[in-house]
């Protein structure tokens, strides 16, 4: 018994090493989301295309949508854009949240790069961004037909991320399986 007790420090050390080793694989910039499982926050904001008209969460009620936070000043959004175009072509409904951007520049961006969005929320001051807990574009939320946020991705959605984090859940919610090519 006493001889076994001598191994306690060693085993504690082994456990600690294992925990720290697993910690190495975690991305420290990835924050746990407070909003997964919660309803998408209510909002009423101007649309990007038409400053006169207001859009609200009712505009995508009863539908499974991706809400994508983007801006023209966001470099990674450039890389992500082709993926969004490809998903939209396959029938995925994507709502844009144009975050702390300039209206003109954002409109031009959509003309030049294609417009994958059903519509865009123009969040000039980032207030909806704060309600969503946005801390950097791009971010993508999967919202189900009940308006509940089911998944959140901070960073670019590409083929790898779509397959690992979105595809199965999207299939479960809609019954369709959009795919992304290797270049997207």
């Amino acid at each position: 018994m006493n001889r076994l007790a001598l191994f306690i420090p060693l085993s504690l050390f082994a456990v600690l090493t294992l925990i720290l080793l697993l910690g190495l694989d975690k991305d420290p910039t990835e924050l746990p989301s407070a909003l997964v499982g919660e309803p998408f926050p209510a909002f009423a904001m101007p649309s990007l295309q038409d400053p006169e008209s207001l859009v609200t969460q009712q505009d995508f009620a009863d539908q499974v949508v991706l809400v994508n936070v983007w801006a023209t000043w966001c470099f990674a959004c450039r890389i992500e854009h082709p993926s969004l175009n490809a998903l939209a072509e396959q029938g995925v409904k994507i709502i844009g949240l144009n975050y702390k951007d300039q209206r003109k520049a954002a409109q031009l961006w959509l003309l030049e790069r294609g417009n994958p969005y059903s519509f865009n929320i123009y969040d000039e001051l980032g207030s909806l961004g704060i309600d969503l807990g946005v801390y950097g574009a791009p971010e993508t939320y999967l919202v189900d037909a009940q308006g509940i946020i089911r998944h959140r991705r901070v960073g670019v959605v590409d083929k790898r991320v779509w397959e690992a984090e979105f595809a199965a859940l999207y299939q479960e919610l809609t019954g369709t399986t959009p795919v992304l090519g290797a270049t997207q």
Partner: protein
Amino acid sequence: MKLLLFLMLVLQSQLLLANAEVVEFSDESLRPRYQQLIEELRCPKCQNQSLADSNSPISNDLRAQVQRLLEEDLSDQQIKDYLVARYSDFILYRPEVNQTTWLLWGSPLVFVLLGLLVVYRLYFKQRPSESQSHSQSQNSDQISPEDQQRLDSLLTDREPK
């Protein structure tokens, strides 16, 4: 002339510094609370800085939001709850005790208890064996009569005359 120019430049630069960040409150009593809150809240983007230290755009926005909420007469706890609901416990430098953080808060206590246990084992558990060896040495203290005589003679020799 040069002195005047120098003075003007020096004063000008101080004006610019003072303008770096001016936060206006309707009630000055909010300022210490604001200062304490932004030092206790963590910038979600820059990880190892508080909102007070960070210059990132999101920290600017969140500072402004904290100020707005203070003006709206929310308590410190309500403001923290507001931000935790959006940014998770991560935003707090002193996370509250809950399901995910009890281990974090509890571990120092566990380690202190473990340490006490080790001390107890090292110190108190050795006493029986120690007293055992003590009694053994007492046995060996009983010296033979010849030795005792020798010792007595030595001691008397040494006594001052």
